């Protein structure tokens, strides 16, 4: 008889690309980030994450770079059978003006907390200005084969992702706590 082994994956407070739930975990050069302008003012970029245990998304976060401009919009998506971004889970983040250079900034989902069950997900980020700067992972060269994008538009209800668009891995994610 096989006895099941309980899975006890602790819920993290802050989940980002280089946390154990992020696809960039293990990217050795990933944590010497640099500031760069957002790639396209009418584009949504998706990054893969994995949710190992049920948790509550209370806030999205991103890392402002050396200059701020425009508004940031984020969302979370389930994955399709082939792993691509699929349906949006919950609501988009309330569109938020970038504020403060070289800091983490947070924004809450417009419809309140989002419950995430164990599954692969994609985190989407769009910025309305190419003057806006965000920090990108120092190990971004491999991002080309991980990220996807909505070639035009802000995070939609259902993703229609395509590949391409460069290799920027914007440092962003979500938090399961309201503060800090």
């Amino acid at each position, binding site marked *: *008889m*096989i*006895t099941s*082994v*309980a*899975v*006890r*994956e*602790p*819920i*993290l*407070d*802050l989940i*980002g690309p*280089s*946390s*154990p739930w992020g696809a*960039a*975990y*293990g*990217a*050795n*050069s*990933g*944590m*010497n*980030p*640099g500031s760069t302008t957002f790639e396209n003012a009418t584009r949504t970029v998706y990054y893969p994450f994995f949710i190992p245990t049920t948790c509550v998304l209370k806030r999205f976060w991103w*890392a402002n770079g050396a200059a701020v401009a425009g508004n940031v919009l984020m969302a979370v998506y389930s994955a399709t059978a082939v792993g691509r971004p699929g349906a949006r889970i919950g609501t988009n983040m309330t569109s938020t003006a970038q504020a403060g250079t*070289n*800091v*983490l900034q947070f924004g809450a989902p417009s419809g309140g907390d989002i419950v995430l069950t164990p599954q692969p997900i994609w985190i989407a980020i769009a910025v309305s200005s190419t003057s806006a700067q965000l*920090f990108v992972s*120092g190990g971004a060269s491999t991002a080309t084969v991980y990220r996807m994008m909505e070639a035009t538009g802000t995070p939609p209800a259902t993703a229609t992702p395509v590949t391409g668009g460069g290799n920027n891995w914007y*440092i962003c*994610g979500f938090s399961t706590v309201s503060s*800090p």
Partner: protein
Amino acid sequence: MAVTLPDRELWSYSGVSIDNYLNGGAVNTLNTNSFGGGVWPAANLIFYVPVVVKRRVIAAKMWFGGGSGTTGTTDIGIYNRAGSRLVNVSATKEATTGIVIRDITDTTIGPDLYYIGMSHTEVTSQFGRQASTAPASAALGVREQAGSGSLPATATWTINSTRNYCPVVGILIDGAYA
């Protein structure tokens, strides 16, 4: 056919140390490019470094990376995710470039997310630390607090996006390790 299961969840195995440097407990990725000795950034500054404890263990000792210098006093301890101190030990820093190990009261913890708190009272002694470009540490969940020389019973932590210093710290579950 009889099936023999491992006596623990192997995916949660972390060796004798649960820390912010090795895969077993770290919520950050290893970054040897920026690892080395660095003076404590501010007198009485407290860092809270997140670590994941994936199974129930007995925390027997704690360690931190030594750099150089013997001035000042170092305090290191464990906080739960709510910011309550579970255990700590005040230690005079040793002049060593290796690992400084301190005994603590055996404390059962996990599975959960914890924060290793570490404070130091002055700014000439060096410690082993990761110096990834800011805001890497903040993005990895590292928090901090201006303290008064020892670890408080309850953390009042904040995120500092400009800090490029994260001490390398850990919990030893092998009480005989020295």
